[in-house]
């Protein structure tokens, strides 16, 4: 059974004068999923979202919602609703009037409006606030009202423009879970744009990493984390130690290289078909490195060595160590496990480190 994707973009492009904001982007979002577009500022994600909403006209390409092209449909007639970055709740109306705005435009009668408004407010956990002014709500509650205002219209696709940016850390963490729950509760397709990778990874079924107007990779959070296709994705999603190196041998995707500082490494080709003698960039995640006090514990790992601790950056569960590789003198960021045995680690101590070759991603040099 082929389900028509709720949203499909075919070769969408947008240029402003001589600046190409979005280049030939194609993707489909299956029904009822949470799709995020992740990228740094200026990568074009906001432009893309606004094109889907109808506030920008694509220079080329097609936009289909539930299989029908909506290129010529003005924003007030499209079956998409958008939650704006600063929510855009109407201050001149109370909460009920805000949520009921779309229904009023459709000519629904007053009693039905009230019923639907009350119902959707209940669903977002804000029963009974319809008569209150918008200013009486907290940041998180305003979020929910903004979503309710869109959801009461039962859109095919809900667009969210970095809605969590203005919230403080704890609230943001809480809202991530809430948004995911709301999405499954309403079973509507969500398209979410953000520059914060933890938001994208935690909430989404699929994530597209966008840079300079193109999608570098589309996949699940796991795919992006464990198998990034390009150096940009490897560097943008999660933390990474980067090294430049030269390839010594290459066979069936397994490579051995020597870094510019002289350390031999074994790694895997990230699918770019790198050959012998080429210069490459190597990515190693801090959390992929195991540290130990004795050499025996890291003996089975493909890449290993010995280092002295330069710095302990204690940050609770996110603690990191800065190590100095004794062989090459290069600095290495390593995650500090909190299982207890490294609690007394101090600068100057010696540790052994090691990691698996298939967690060593290798990309052709010269990519961002």
């Amino acid at each position, binding site marked *: 059974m082929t389900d028509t994707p709720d949203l499909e973009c075919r070769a969408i492009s947008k240029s402003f004068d001589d600046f190409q904001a979005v280049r030939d982007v194609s993707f489909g979002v299956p029904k009822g999923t949470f799709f995020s577009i992740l990228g740094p500022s200026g990568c074009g994600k906001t432009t893309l979202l606004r094109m889907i*909403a*109808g*506030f920008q006209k694509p220079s080329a390409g097609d936009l289909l919602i539930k299989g029908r092209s909506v290129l010529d449909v*003005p*924003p*007030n*007639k499209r079956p*998409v*609703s*958008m939650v*704006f*970055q*600063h929510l*855009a709740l*109407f*201050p*001149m*109306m109370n909460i009920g009037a805000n949520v009921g*705005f*779309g229904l*009023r*435009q*459709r000519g629904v009668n007053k009693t039905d409006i009230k019923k639907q408004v009350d119902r959707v407010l209940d669903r977002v956990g804000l029963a009974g606030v319809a008569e209150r002014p918008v200013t009486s709500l907290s940041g998180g509650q305003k979020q929910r009202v903004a979503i309710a*205002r*869109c959801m009461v*219209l039962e859109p095919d696709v809900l667009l969210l423009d970095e809605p969590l940016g203005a919230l403080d850390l704890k609230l943001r963490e809480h809202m991530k879970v809430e948004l995911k729950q709301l999405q499954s509760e309403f079973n509507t397709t969500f398209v979410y744009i953000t520059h914060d990778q933890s938001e994208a990874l935690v909430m989404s079924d699929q994530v597209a990493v966008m840079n300079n107007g193109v999608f570098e990779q589309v996949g699940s959070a796991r795919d992006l984390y464990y198998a990034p296709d390009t150096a940009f994705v490897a560097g943008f999603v999660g933390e990474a130690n980067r090294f430049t190196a030269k390839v010594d041998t290459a066979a069936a995707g397994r490579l051995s290289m020597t870094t510019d500082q002289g350390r031999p490494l074994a790694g895997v080709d990230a699918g770019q078909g790198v050959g012998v003698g080429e210069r490459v960039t190597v990515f190693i995640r801090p959390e992929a490195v195991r540290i130990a006090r004795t050499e025996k514990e890291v003996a089975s790992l493909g890449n290993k060595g010995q280092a002295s601790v330069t710095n302990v950056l204690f940050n609770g569960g996110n603690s990191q160590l800065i190590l100095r590789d004794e062989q090459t003198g290069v600095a290495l960021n390593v995650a500090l496990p909190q299982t207890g045995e490294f609690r007394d680690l101090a600068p100057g101590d010696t540790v052994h480190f090691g990691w698996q070759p298939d967690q060593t991603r290798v990309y052709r040099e010269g990519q961002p």
Partner: protein
Amino acid sequence: MTSNRSKLTFWLLMAPLLLWLLLLIILPHVGMFIVSLREKVGVREYETGFANYAVFFNEPLYWNTFARTAYMSISATVLTLLIGFPIAYYIAKLTRGRSKTTLFLMCLIPFWVSELVRTFGWMILLRETGVISNLLQDLGLVSGPVEMLYNDAAIMIGLVYTSMLFMVVPLVTTLDSLDDSLIEAGYDLGGSSVSILREIVIPHALPGIVSGCIVVFMLSLGNYLTPILLGGKDSLWFTGLIYNQFITRFNWELGSAFGFLLLGLSSLIVFVGLKLSGQSLTRTMAQ
């Protein structure tokens, strides 16, 4: 820094303010009221009473002129609002940067030039031997010179012209503060231009609308030059009556009574307007 020193400074700063307000505003108006209560009974003989006000109410000419002035001022206010709102909206929402400042400045320029010059310009345009009359004759639309001055329409054109700045500026200020994303959200939720105007734009702009209307009404009510020059001697404008009583008839008592009535109406409208819109005088004037 003794408290005596700062007390002295305080009173030094208060003095000009109090002198100004007392001598030039409060006492003169009180004096004007007192004078309005005096009726000239004979040479150098005065009687206290509301006789002057009685004259006003009994003489149809005075009462009608007053009503007419008020009515036309209201019409001028409404007209200015209707004409000015789209302009203010255009400047606030549909232009950016350089063109926005330029257009805004262009609205301000007629204000800096004296009202006399502005009205003079309209006289040249509208009178019998003026530009528009000649233009119509040249185009063959009329057979002889057309006198477009000395009627109510001319007064209206002049009043609207003079008041336009005071409507456009507060409107542009309030419309500017309307976040574009609110309008986009309105569209996104299915609104049409009309419903967005009605539910979002106008409620937001209401403070500007009210302060603009109050100011324009006041200015029109108290205007002397424009109605007299463009409406002629029979223009029946209340300020003209006041002037006559003072300068030609030398009946200061009646003139003062008229003045007080005008002041009363003007203040009443301001007060009602502020109350209706729930604004305070300080906030409105700041615009």
